[in-house]
């Protein structure tokens, strides 16, 4: 049982691609081997900045011989047919067998496909893998035509068994596989040959390469936390950065440096962002003060001076970067002090938001008006909300955000505080962008909630009005995220508002000449393309993740369900809608709910069929005086009771009470169907019973459209 070792050695592979590439190498090669009949005991893939490595253990030395039986023509078939069969099977007449097959006697051929040596199969599979590797981005180099993530320099491919190692003969675009590799670019001692995976990883280590990225990441984290701990400090955890840094080095050397005192006054987020984005530094915090005071950088080399030169260089670069940051910070503060935060944002009028939706300043004006409208609905002071809306985007004009766009909002918060604005205004500067995704936190300060809602509703109505809706996987303006944001803001804060009304008022502020899409306000919730149904679709996705089935939402959204008065259902009041859906979902989980649903469906089916057959609607006039049995009379009574309970419960939004009143119908409905036959010969009684079924339908539909439910 030989072991296989593959190393694809190249110029530096981007850190973010390494893990995936190692997995792809493993998957493609092992799948290819198994497909060709070569099974194996185990496989592991590794990556460093310069190599992808795959080690496969316990591979079959040869693929098994395959025997295939082929049925041929009848023994009395014409000579030509038999010869044709022989040619196809590559056999002679005497190698055929005769067998009874049904009524006739037929020739059979047994074709043996001999097994192939592992080396042949490996060569084929690896060649195919290299030529078809799924890099996110690949390139050509020199005069060749092969594509790889960066120039591929050498291929190591050996099979090792008790007898020793054998090179798998293979050549891809002029690169011939061998049994040699090299170690660290600067600390390695030239090329070396290897005879097995153990030999390979040991020699790599001697040549200053740690093959396993997890081992490198572990070593970095252990050393970084040790050094921080020794100084009474702690490293700010960042798994993404750790994985990236582990992909930038073959031999990690952890160095900790100090941040110059002059920069410690910068906001911690600025220090962290600058160090991480530009230099891949970890931030080191003083747990007593919460300040970021040092940094950890990971070098790829050991030096005579224990990294002193490297650290000094890094420190110098950091100082240059941070003096830029400090320059921006001080300029921004100066601007805020002299013209206020709103003044800082004055330039937004010359920044285009979208050529059909005007400038950022136009957008801010729309958000302000809308936020003012929302304010009373979320319990915020309209003037404060309006002020927050006016300044929330001002930091887009700050120098700091110009340099670090990812600090938008956060800088606004700092600058709002520096300008002496109300704390809730400062908070809104940061929080109004949220939630940015399904897992991001939802603001709960009323001022932030109002501005955040206005921000997202304006985005949605704006792009809807100019007919820039998402299609398929294309959603360039992140409208799905905005809709989810609205949903989470409303539900997370129990906000009661009618989105349709807000939407209409938002639309009114968009310049008419640009409204190219149909205006959703006129078509309300009926239209498939309407903004409200887009929001409903996102709501279904969102609630599905919360364990509420989409048909349950449909049942509550349906036009035929809703208030008993028949008024427009409050489907644009998301809080109410979800409350109802939750009550219905809970109800359906009970026995009563499940059985009532069956009873309802039975009643509805009989009624619908009869209505279709008779061409009439049995919609009124069920009279208890035509009832023949107790069960029938009891159902009349139960329906009266349920109706009397459900109407006020629905009006007061007590959906649990409405559901339980509906649940009380389960036994009488079951008993009714057991006792009577609806379609009797007596036409008066039949009609009366159909009208009775209609009451069941009406009462149940007033709670939710149970016809929309599956099962």
């Amino acid at each position, binding site marked *: 049982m030989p072991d296989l070792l593959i190393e694809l050695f190249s110029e530096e592979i981007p850190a973010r691609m390494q893990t995936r590439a190692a997995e792809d190498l493993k998957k493609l090669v092992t799948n290819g081997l198994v497909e060709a009949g070569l099974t194996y005991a185990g496989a592991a893939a590794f990556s460093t900045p310069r190599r992808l490595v795959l080690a496969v253990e316990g591979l079959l030395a040869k693929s098994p011989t395959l025997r295939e039986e082929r049925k041929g023509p009848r023994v009395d078939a014409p000579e030509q047919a038999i010869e044709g069969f022989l040619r196809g099977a590559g056999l002679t007449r005497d190698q055929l067998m005769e067998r009874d097959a049904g009524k006739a006697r037929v020739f059979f051929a047994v074709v043996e496909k001999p097994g192939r040596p592992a080396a042949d199969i490996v060569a084929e599979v690896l060649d195919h893998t290299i030529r078809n590797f799924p890099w996110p981005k690949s390139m050509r180099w020199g005069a060749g035509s092969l594509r790889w993530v960066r120039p591929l320099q050498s291929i190591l491919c050996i099979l090792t068994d008790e007898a020793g190692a054998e090179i798998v003969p293979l050549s891809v675009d002029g690169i011939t596989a061998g049994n040699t590799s090299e170690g660290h670019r600067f600390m390695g001692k030239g090329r070396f040959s290897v005879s097995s995976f153990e030999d390979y990883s040991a020699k790599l280590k001697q040549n200053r390469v740690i093959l396993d990225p997890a081992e490198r990441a572990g070593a970095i984290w252990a050393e970084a936390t040790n050094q921080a701990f020794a100084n009474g400090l702690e490293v700010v955890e960042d798994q993404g950065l750790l994985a990236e840094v582990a992909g930038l080095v073959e031999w990690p050397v952890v160095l900790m440096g100090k941040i110059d005192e002059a920069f410690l006054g910068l906001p911690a987020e600025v220090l962290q962002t600058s160090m991480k984005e530009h230099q891949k530094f970890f931030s080191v915090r003083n747990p007593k003060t919460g300040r970021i005071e040092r940094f950890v950088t990971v070098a790829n080399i050991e030096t005579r001076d224990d990294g002193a030169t490297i650290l000094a*260089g890094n420190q*110098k670069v950091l100082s240059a970067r941070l003096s830029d940051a400090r320059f921006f910070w001080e300029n921004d503060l100066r601007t805020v002090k002299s013209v206020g935060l709103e003044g800082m944002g004055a330039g937004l009028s010359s920044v285009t938001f979208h050529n059909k939706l005007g400038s950022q300043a136009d957008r801010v004006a729309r958000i302000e008006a809308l936020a003012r409208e929302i304010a009373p609905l979320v319990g915020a002071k309209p003037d404060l909300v309006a002020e927050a809306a006016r300044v929330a985007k001002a930091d887009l004009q700050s120098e700091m955000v110009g340099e670090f766009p990812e600090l938008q909002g956060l800088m606004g918060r700092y600058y709002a505080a520096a300008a002496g604005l109300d704390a809730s205004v400062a908070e809104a500067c940061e929080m109004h962008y949220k939630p940015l995704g399904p897992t991001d936190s939802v603001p709960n300060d009323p001022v932030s909630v109002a501005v955040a809602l206005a921000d997202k509703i304006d985005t949605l109505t704006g792009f809807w009005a100019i007919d820039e809706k998402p299609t398929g996987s294309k959603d360039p303006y992140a409208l799905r995220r905005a809709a989810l944001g609205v949903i989470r803001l409303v539900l997370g804060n129990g906000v009661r508002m009618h989105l349709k009304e807000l939407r209409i008022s938002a639309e009114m502020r968009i310049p008419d000449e640009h409204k190219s899409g149909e205006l959703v306000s006129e078509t309300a919730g009926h239209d498939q393309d309407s903004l409200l149904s887009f929001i409903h679709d996102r709501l279904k996705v969102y609630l599905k993740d919360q364990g509420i089935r989409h048909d349950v939402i449909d049942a509550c959204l349906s036009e035929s369900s809703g208030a008993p008065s028949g008024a427009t259902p409050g489907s644009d009041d998301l809080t109410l809608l979800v409350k109802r859906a939750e009550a219905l979902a809970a109800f359906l989980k009970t026995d009563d709910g499940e059985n009532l649903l069956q009873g309802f469906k039975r009643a509805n089916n009989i009624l619908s069929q009869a209505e279709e057959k008779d061409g009439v609607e049995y919609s009124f006039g069920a009279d208890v005086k035509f009832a023949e049995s107790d069960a029938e009379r009891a159902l009349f009574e139960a329906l009266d009771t349920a109706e009397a309970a459900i109407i006020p419960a629905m009006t007061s939004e007590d959906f649990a009470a409405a559901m339980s009143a509906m649940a009380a119908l389960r036994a009488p409905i079951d008993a009714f169907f057991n006792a009577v036959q609806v379609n009797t010969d007596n036409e008066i009684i039949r009609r009366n019973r159909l009208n009775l079924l209609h009451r069941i339908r009406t009462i149940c539909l007033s709670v939710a459209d149970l016809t929309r439910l599956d099962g």
Partner: protein
Amino acid sequence: MVETGSTPRSFQEIILRLQGYWARQGCAVMQPYDMEVGAGTFHPATTLRSLGTKPWAAAYVQPSRRPTDGRYGENPNRLQHYYQYQVLIKPSPPDLQALYLGSLQAIGIDMEMHDIRFVEDDWESPTLGAWGLGWEVWCDGMEVSQFTYFQQVGGHDCHPVSGELTYGLERLAMYVLGAAHVMDMPYNDPDAPIPLTYGDVFRQTEQEYSRHNFDAATTEMLLRHFEDAERECAQLLAQPAEDPKTGKRIIMAHPAYDQCIKASHLFNLLDARGVISVTERQAYIGRVRALAKQCADAFVQTDAGGWAA
């Protein structure tokens, strides 16, 4: 000439050592292009020569201008006028990384003492319709060069692929010379009879151009010139391939490309003047790219571009 091992003493010594090194590697050492460009890549020795099948190897210094980066000579690292050192070899040789590291050694960077890293950085020039894959090269955390394998230029696939190296000379030199502020860096030898710093040579021009770029350049004129360049480029390329006077096939790819360079620089100036909105910006970039693409189309119809009758 002693090169490796010793530390250079001045900005110009670093340039001279790079010139010597790449000359020894067989590159044609060329002179800067005589027009205002944003980067060494704009030099026709790179942009145009990376097209077509003919082998090419060139190295040169290119003065480059980025009007928006002006800081009146006060920022230690930012300049609106600076120098790039550019190397272009086609096809890219298999040992280009090693050759590059050799050049760092040549300017006194000891590989055993410093941390040299190749960090992913895909290069794209929207104005040139060009892109490539490669790295920014870090020395102790500082970006000292850009290393790119060109995949496409002017909308044309590069076949063979050129390897391009770009060194930001001031930054690299400041690092090697240990200068904290670019203006304090020795330009010539500090022991020369008349020692000059970078600031002695460039502080005043940085101030003058910063004021010019941000506040004084006449925007109407810049806009007009942009459109002139655009028209002239099209006009030159619209001429028939055969020159009516000599009867020879003379396609004016280079003169047309000069107009593309002009348009690009005028756009940068307009940008610095702050008169281009975000949406217009894309449109301007698209217009320059259209010129670059037409010039590339023309160049591959010429001898140097690999055209064969």
